[in-house]
C-alpha cells in the first residue's frame, strides 16, 4: 500500500520471540471484546455492565470460578486430544466421539461389576479402574481412526467425525428409553454414581485437575526432548522424510491417536464422573461433546504448545460460562455467548498473520516515485 512518500508492506518476521506471541494474543482478546461490544450495544445494554457480568461470574464469583475450573479441565483434555495428533500432522476432528466413549466406559465399570461388588471393593481402586477404562475406550476409538489412516490412507477427519455420530447415538441408546444405563427414574439420563465413586476433591476441585496440569507440563518437553516427540514432529512436518529416517508411519499414527483418544476419554470421565453435582451422563450430553470442539480451536491457537494452551483454555472456559451467565442475568438475546466466542476465534486466527508478519514502513526512493508508464517502448 502506498501512502504518499511512504510504503506500507507486510513482511515475514525473521525471528519470532515468545513476547510477540503473548502480545498478539492479548491484542486478539482485546479486539474480540471490542467487537462484541456491538452485540451488547445492539441489545441496549451498558457495555461495562455486560463485561462486568461476564468476568465477575467467570473469574471472581466462587460458584462461577469453580465452574470455570471444571470446564477448563475438560477443555484441557480435549485440547490435548487434538494437539497430540496435530503435532504429527493428523486431525482428530471428531474427538467428541472419544469423549462419549470415555464417559460410557467409565460408567460401565460399576455397571458391569454390579452393586454388591462395588460396595465390596475399595473405592479408590474402582475410581482408578473407571479412569483407565475411560482412557482405554477413548484410545480405542481414536486408535481405530489411526489404524485406518496408516494402513489404508482413509482420511482421519472423516473417520473420526463418523465415529462421533455412531457413539453419540450409542450413548443415547445406553441412557435413554430403557437402555442399560438408564436411571431408575427414567428421565433420559444415566444412573447416578454411588457416592464412594465420586472422584476425590482437593479444595473443591476434582483430582483430574492434577492430570490435566501434569499433561500441560509434560507434553511440551515430550515433543521437544524425547525421541518419540521428535518422531511425531518429523512425521508432522514431512511423512516422506520421516519414513526415510526409519520412522514407521503405521506405529506413529497409531501412537498419536491412542494418546489423543486417551485424553479425550479422560475428558469424558472428568465431566460425567468427577464434576461435583453431575456424577451421571446427563440427557444433554451432546452439549459437552460440542464443547469439546473448543479444544480444537485452543490447540490451534496455542500453536501446538501444551503449556501455552492453558491460559487460552481458561479464557475460553471462563468466557463461555460468563457470557452464558450474563445472557441470563441481563436478559440478552439467545446466542450472545456463542457470538462472543466466535469473535474471539476470528481475532485469534487473524492474529496469526500479525504474529508471523509485520507491517513495515519504507520511504520510497524519490527516483521511483514518479509514475512509470506501463507501456512498452515501440521499436
Amino acid at each position, binding site marked *: 500500500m502506498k501512502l504518499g512518500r511512504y510504503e506500507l508492506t507486510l513482511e515475514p518476521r525473521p525471528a519470532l520471540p515468545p513476547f510477540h506471541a503473548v502480545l498478539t494474543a492479548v491484542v486478539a482478546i482485546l479486539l474480540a471484546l471490542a467487537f462484541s461490544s456491538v452485540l451488547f450495544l445492539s441489545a441496549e445494554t451498558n457495555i461495562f455492565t455486560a463485561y462486568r457480568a461476564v468476568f465477575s461470574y467467570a473469574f471472581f464469583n466462587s460458584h462461577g470460578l469453580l465452574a470455570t475450573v471444571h470446564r477448563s479441565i475438560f477443555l484441557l483434555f480435549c485440547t490435548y486430544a487434538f494437539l497430540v495428533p496435530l503435532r504429527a500432522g493428523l486431525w482428530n476432528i471428531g474427538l467428541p466421539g472419544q469423549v462419549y466413549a470415555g464417559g460410557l466406559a467409565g460408567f460401565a465399570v460399576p455397571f458391569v461389576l454390579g452393586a454388591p461388588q462395588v460396595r465390596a471393593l475399595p473405592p479408590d481402586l474402582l475410581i482408578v479402574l473407571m479412569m483407565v477404562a475411560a482412557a482405554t475406550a477413548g484410545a480405542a476409538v481414536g486408535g481405530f481412526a489411526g489404524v485406518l489412516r496408516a494402513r489404508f490412507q482413509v482420511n482421519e477427519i472423516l473417520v473420526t467425525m463418523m465415529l462421533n455420530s455412531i457413539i453419540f447415538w450409542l450413548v443415547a441408546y445406553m441412557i435413554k428409553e430403557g437402555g442399560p444405563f438408564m436411571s431408575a427414574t427414567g428421565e433420559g439420563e444415566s444412573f447416578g454414581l454411588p457416592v464412594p465413586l465420586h472422584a476425590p476433591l482437593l479444595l473443591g476441585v476434582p483430582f483430574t485437575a492434577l492430570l490435566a496440569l501434569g499433561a500441560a507440563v509434560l507434553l511440551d518437553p515430550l515433543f521437544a*526432548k524425547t525421541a518419540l516427540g521428535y*518422531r511425531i*514432529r*518429523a512425521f508432522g512436518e514431512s511423512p516422506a*522424510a520421516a*519414513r*526415510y529416517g526409519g520412522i*514407521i508411519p503405521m506405529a506413529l499414527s497409531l501412537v498419536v491417536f491412542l494418546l489423543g483418544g486417551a485424553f479425550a476419554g479422560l475428558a469424558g470421565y472428568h465431566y460425567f464422573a468427577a464434576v461435583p453435582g453431575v456424577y451421571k451422563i446427563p440427557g444433554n450430553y451432546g452439549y459437552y461433546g460440542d464443547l469439546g470442539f473448543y479444544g480444537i480451536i485452543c490447540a490451534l491457537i496455542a500453536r501446538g504448545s501444551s503449556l501455552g494452551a492453558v491460559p487460552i483454555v481458561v479464557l475460553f472456559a471462563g468466557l463461555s460460562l460468563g457470557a452464558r451467565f450474563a445472557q441470563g442475568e441481563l436478559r440478552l438475546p439467545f446466542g450472545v455467548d456463542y457470538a462472543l466466542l466466535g469473535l474471539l476465534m476470528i481475532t485469534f486466527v487473524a492474529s496469526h498473520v500479525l504474529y508471523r508478519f509485520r507491517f513495515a514502513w519504507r520511504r520510497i526512493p524519490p527516483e521511483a516515485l514518479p509514475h512509470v508508464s506501463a507501456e512498452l517502448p515501440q521499436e
Partner: protein
Amino acid sequence: MKRGSAAAPEPILAARGITKRFPGVLALDDVDLDVYPGEIHAVLGQNGAGKTTLMNILFGLVQPDEGTLEVFGRRVRFRSPHDALTHGIGMVHQTRRLVSAHTVLENIVLGHPRVRGVLNLRAARTEVETLGNRYGFTVDLGARVWQLSEGERQWVEILKALYRGARILILDEPTSALTPPEVKTLLAGLQGLVRGQGITVILVTHKLPIVMSASHRVTVLRSGKVVVRLKTAEATEEILVHHMVGRDVAFRSTDRALPTGRPLLEAEQLAAFNDKGLLALRGVSFSLREGEVLGVAGVTGNGQEELAQVLAGLRPAASGSVRFDGQDITRLSPLQRWQRGIGYVPAERSEVASIAAFSLVENITLNYHFDPAFTRRGVLDDAGLERLTQRILSAYNVKAPHQHTRAQHLSGGNLQKLILGRVLSRRPRFLIAHLPTHGLDVEATAFVRASLLDARAAGAAVLLVSEDLDEILSLSDWVAPIYEGRFGAVLSREEADAETVGAMMAGSLLKGARGQ
C-alpha cells in the same frame, strides 16, 4: 567494478548496486548487471552465489534492499512480477508452472491480464498461433500439457512469456530437466529468438558447456558478488571455472590400486512396482564387495528410483531377494537397514532427505533418533547431537550461519553436503547414493565425489545412481547401464567405455543382464 567492453549500445536492462540481505546471509552485495539488446547473457555461478535472488529481483518477486533497476533506459521499481511483465520482462522458472490437465493454449492464455471474465479462446488461438508461427513454435496448441515432453513444456512457458509481451526473457537453469537433444533444440531456438526477433535472453546456469555454446556475454557471480564480466568469445571453460570457484578444482577419480574386500551385498532378480503400479524394476541382479563402487548409469525414469528405494527398504520388492553380509534383508524395514549399516542418500534432498522447517541439528537427528548412543531412556541427547552437527558442518564444509538455522535456508549444495555428511557419519557399510551431485555446482560436486571415494576407501560398498556418465566412469569399479528396469550388463570399469555405456543407457546393444 565497471564493465570491460566499450563501444556497446545502451544496455536494455541495467541493475546498479543491487544489495539484498536475508536473515544471516548477504545474498547480493553491490551487484551490477548490464544486459544489451539482442544478446544471450549468461549469469554463471555456483549454488548459493545469488543467481536466483538476482533474477527474482529482476522479475519483481523480491525487492532489493539497495540499488536501482533500469529497463529500456527508464528507472523502474518492481513490486510484483506483474510490474516486471508490463515492462517487458518474462521469466521461465526452473520448475514448470503449468496446469498439466489443460491444453497448451489454455495454459498460455491462463492468467493473462487481458483475460477478465469471459475467455475467448478462439480469438486467443489465432493470436497465439500467429505469435507461434513468428517464433517458429512447433508444439500443438490443442495438446494437453501432460502429454508433452519436458522440452516442449519449456517452449510453452517461453511462448507464454512472449504472449504477455516479454522482450527480455529470464530462463532459470533451463536445461536441468532436459535430455541432451532437448538442450540442443532449446539453445538453437533461443538463438533464433535473439537473432530473428530481437528478444534478449538472460540465461541463469551453472553449466559451463551451456554458457560456452550459447551465450554472447557472461557475468560470473560468486558469494553474492560479481567477480567478472566477459565476452564468451574471450572466455574458456578453465577461466570461467576459476572465477566461479575462486580457485582451480580437480575432480578425483577412483584409485584402481585399492584392493577390494569380501562380498557384502547380493541382489538377485530384484523387481518392483512404481507408484502407478507398473513394473518399473524388472529383474536386476548384481553383487558388490566391500570397497567397490557400482555405478548405475541411466536416464531418470528407468527404474533407478525403484532400485534405490527397494535397497533402502522404502519400497517392497515385488520379487527377488537382497542378501547383505550373508543375511536375507529383502523384507527388513528402513530402520532395521539403518541399524545394520545401510545408508541412503535419496535424490529428493528437500522432500525426503531433509525437513525444511527443522534446524540443522534436528535434520541430523533424522538418522540418529534411534541410535542408543544419542538417546537415554527415550530422551534425546541434545548436547551430543549438537556436537555431532558441529563436527559434520566442519568436516563436510557446510556453510551455514548457525547449527539451529532451518534447513530451508541452506543452498542446494550445502544441504546435500549436510545430508551426505549425516549419512556418512553413520559409517555405512553399504551406501546408496542417488543423483548425489545433481544440480550441484562444480565445487560441491567435487566435494561430494571425493566423499564417496573416501567412503569407498574406508571399506564401504557404494551403489552410485547417476545420469552423469562422466561421474559414473570416474568413480565406479563396475558400471551397470540401466534401461527400462533392466541392467544392460554389469561391466568392469575396463570394459566400460562411454560409447558402450551410452548406447546401453539409450536401450541399444542390450544383451540381457549378466552377473559379474
